[in-house]
């Protein structure tokens, strides 16, 4: 098929970074369609008409009741059927920042994970664990430093089998801009064992950040910046690869270029262009 793949970018009230997500996908060779959520709900626009789904960053519904929470309610509610259909078609889905928060809170990430032998980690922030049976769950909580933070970070790619991250080499560089990005899970070992950690925060030379600020900007467990589901088709990450697809966006452009994230988007587009 020679058709140009099309990415659907839904916009909830309070969503932003939809423009540059569209820009990144266009640079990667896709057509980008930015659509208000309401148009999907009314049936005016359909996920079925597209080959990719991109959930952008921002503050959907003002982050009321927790970041991504109310968008997750939409994803698990009236949008669930469209999503299930898309998943059945093996549609690559990317959720960035607020989109990641929504995917996690809707339970789409980390997806179905085999619990590790060690089992549930009882030492979650606040000292509490409430999980549904032995299902491995994750969430994103307030940054360890307690506030919104915007800075450039280095990312070490993992999940070599995912359509999104395959073939990525060396650290990628892009900014984070969030207040609730600290990744915690009831069973991180299980997610790691299943190779579902797609990105880890690292230092400029590619060494894992080891939890140290500012390389790990939010205190995420095991430096986790992004994960994929068990199929590798659904990727969620807190940093903003869509803000580094051109060299001019790199703050070190005068010193040392590198780490552009365009390949990540090209990977997603390539996965469906071959259909």
């Amino acid at each position: 098929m020679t058709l140009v793949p099309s990415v659907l970018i839904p916009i909830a009230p309070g969503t932003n970074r939809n423009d540059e997500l569209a820009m990144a996908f266009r640079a990667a060779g896709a057509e980008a369609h930015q659509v208000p959520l309401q148009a999907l709900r009314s049936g005016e626009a359909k996920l079925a008409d597209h080959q990719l789904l991109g959930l952008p960053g921002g503050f959907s519904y003002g982050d009321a009741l927790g970041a991504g929470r109310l968008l997750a309610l939409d994803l698990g509610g009236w949008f669930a059927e469209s999503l299930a259909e898309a998943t059945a078609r093996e549609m690559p889905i990317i959720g960035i920042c607020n989109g990641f928060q929504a995917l996690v809170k809707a339970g789409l990430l980390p997806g179905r994970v085999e619990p590790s032998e060690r089992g549930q980690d009882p030492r979650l922030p606040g000292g509490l664990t409430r999980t549904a049976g032995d299902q491995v769950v994750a969430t994103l909580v307030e940054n360890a430093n307690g506030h919104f933070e915007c800075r450039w970070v280095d990312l070490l790619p993992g999940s070599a089998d995912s359509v999104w991250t395959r073939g990525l080499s060396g650290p990628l560089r892009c900014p984070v801009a969030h207040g609730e990005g600290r990744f915690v899970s009831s069973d991180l070992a299980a997610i790691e064992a299943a190779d579902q950690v797609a990105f880890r925060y690292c230092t400029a030379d590619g060494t894992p950040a080891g939890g140290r600020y500012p390389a790990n900007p939010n205190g995420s467990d095991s430096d986790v910046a992004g994960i994929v589901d068990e199929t590798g088709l659904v990727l969620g990450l807190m940093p903003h690869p869509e803000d580094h697809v051109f060299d001019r966006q790199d703050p070190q452009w005068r010193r040392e270029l590198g780490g552009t994230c365009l390949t990540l988007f090209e990977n997603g587009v390539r996965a469906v262009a071959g259909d």
Partner: protein
Amino acid sequence: MLVGVGTAGDAAREIAIVVGPGRFDSGPDGPAQKAKLFGVRADQIVEYRVFHVRGDLDPEQVELLASELLVDPVRQWWMHRSEHTPPSGHGRVTVIETGLRPGVTDREGAELVRAARELGLPVEAAAVASRWLIYGFLSDRHIQLLADRVLHNSVIERWALDELPPAHADLSATPTATAIIPLSGLDHHDLEELSRSRRLGLTAEEMVAIQKHFASEGREPTDGELETLAQTWSEHCSHKTFRAVISTPDGEIDGLLDTYLRGATDAINAPWVESAFVDNAGIVNFDNRFDIALKAETHNHPSALEPFGGANTGVGGVVRDILGVSAKPIALTDVLCFGPEDLRVAELPPGVLHPRRIRSGVIAGIGDYGNKIGVPNLAGAIFHDPSYTTTPLVFAGCVGLLPRGSHPTEPAAGDFVIMLGGAVGRDGVGGATFSSQSMGAETAEIAGSSVQIGDPVVEKGLIDVVIAAREAGLYSAITDCGAGGLSSAVGEMAEALGAEVDLAKVPRKYPGLAPWEVWLSEAQERMVLAVPDPVPLLALAEAWQVDATVIGWFTGEGRLVVNDGDDVVIDLDTSFLHHGRPRLHLQAAADDTRRGPRSPEELVGTTIEPVAALKALLSHPSLRSNESVIRTYDHEVLGGTVIRPYDGVEMDGPADGTVVVPPGTDGSDPTRGLAIGIGAAMLIGRHDCEAMAWAAVDEAIRNAVVAGADPDRLSLLDNFAWGNPNDPRTLARLVAACRGCHDAAVTYRAPFVSGKDSLFNEFVGPDGVPDPVTPTLIITAAGIVSDIGSIPAVGLMAPGNDIWLLGPHTGTLGGSHLDEVTGGDRGGHVPGPDPDAVLRHREMHRAIAAGLVVSAHDISEGGLAAAAAEWAHAGRRGVAITTAERHSPYELFGEGLGRYLIEVRPDNADDLAEAAPSARRVGWVTEDDRVRIGTELDISLEEVGQAFRSTKPIVATEAGPATAAGGGRR
């Protein structure tokens, strides 16, 4: 009222749910630390969230609501508030609750109602509050202090021991009807009294004009008419001081705006200016297809009372100004002025918040709004001065992008008036008149209703709808609802045509509002559009989930008619409304600026150890690193940022100017950028306000030029924050500053395109003596970068490269930062107007455009030494500079106009000398990690970094009677 463990079918009306775990905030900005400022020592303070829900919910529904909406099941729990008791065995625990006052914007409560209904739960109202557990033996007085000074702000919040009732709006209130306010027969004194008691802010002369007008119509005004006139004629809306006739000892000035600011713009007659001083924002050309919209606003009075809300709505307001010229916001700026952070609580005047509380609230408010609407915050500055303690200043700026010719400005008779945005409440009534008057100890209580909380999510929706409507050509005119609400927005648009509006159509947050309150409420996040065909616009707004309401139409009859159903609220002649205000006449004293030489030896005579002085300068609150602040603002969103506020090899060096490639110009040259520079020189203004204006304009231009802007293609914004212009001495300084702005702009050929004056920035204490703000002028320069590839790096790059100095090797020390950190106010020359500086700006740009400048830094606060240190720090490279045989404080720390440091490769020396003939080689980038100037200054990069990052000013002890930063006011 409390909910028990009922059986199914037991419906509850009011439910209060506590969500945990609590938040232990033990950081430096945590409540326990802040409490120490007030002498209150709590062992620990833990915050829990409380959700109040009204509705007939059975226990299963409550369970569903809580588990689906209120808690994150991975890490949170919930319980009914009645079950939430402090743990025993921890000593004494006091419980207090804080929450918003009824009617204050509560986004989270509103979203909770919406989401609960999505789940099919019968929720009628919801409100969010905080429950604080305070550990430790605290007296009642200390609990009171803690609540008042740390945990809540009475302007928008309430508090109670143990349990606070929910803040649901009172739905039972009955509206009041329009009232007639008789004016006939009132004398001057009565009219003044009426103006005072209704807080109209109108002078006796203006009240007389109104009295005469209604006498000529043979009737009395309604309350709505009087309030509309007061808003429209307020300083905030009509800039009456800047339009006043001013008598000075040197003759009469026919309006500061026309004579000096617009006067300069007219004299320059720059071809790139599309629109200046006539619309919500200035409009200038970006390239041959797109224009840039520029605006900077002030939001001072509200930020003094409710720092978060004041700053928050300040950003919201200036973004709507940009939307009001049909431009898409692409960058924000903010300049903040606070009192000394180490101010002793005992020195705090009554009714005034501590500078640290104002600072943290304002910064959080700026960040919250910009981050949530998704517009990068790209430039700013923070200044400290004792006069800002009682009157903190918040300047919020915005840059927008629009295709040339896409902003319609002509409503037609028959067009509909459409209000975009949320429902109207009582908050924000009287914002314009409030901000046009002086403040005092009781202002917080009286003016509480003028202060609001913003709702950036609604504003993001406004941006999306307005830009989509512009693309589709759906409106014929647009403006924002600023201070004065519908009255100013519809009033302005209807100036030529007249309009008829029915307030009964306007959605309200709760009943009980008088019609004039609906008409005047500033309520944020609203725009007014003139629309020929409402159907497509209403459909567009619905798709974006933004409320839109047809509230009237443009009549073409020249009267502003406002009804509330059958009740006639207003029927005003628009020409009287807009042109009936008698022109103000003001008296300025002789210019008392202290120009001219004082003995330079006064200052130089003191022994200043250069390294100690440099550390004091780098740690001065107005110079030191604000990186920790900038990190809480999103400066990357939209993906167009090229030069960041903190840049360099470790991203911790201060950039002079910032650069953005405007997103959305797909198809245009992607190498073209917009540079933004900010300038201010308040220390010089203590001596000479005309020189301050020159220095501020020059600094803004230097910052933009270093970032690659063409100095012959600049546009400027002016922002004044001044005291009471009725004081002839204060006015004299304002005149001097305006004259300086004019002369500098004309000399530099950089036109002003928009501005904002904020007057009456003074605090009248209990002693009745006004404390005005130090004369404050902020200049923003925006310039075109034709090739972003030529922009110099931030920070030194490569050992072996040469350092060149462009401009004089020495500066002046009067009003300098060295003067400030070594005791202050010793006099001496201030940097005077320098007509040659413009030549150096052009030389600098020629060198940059030719690709010769590897990195660069302008010489500003702290002179050559501070500039070299910042530059070396940003690049983590050493530098050795020699500009003279001997480096006195004038060489090291003197300040002046049009001075730059440039890093150039040795093999480009000849080309640089040709591009910038005034430049000379003064040093080189070294292999080591030291900053050296002659033999007089030698400091390691590590010490520079420590001083720059210091959170407390380092005192320059060697200089004798030094004071901490902020000292030394005259």
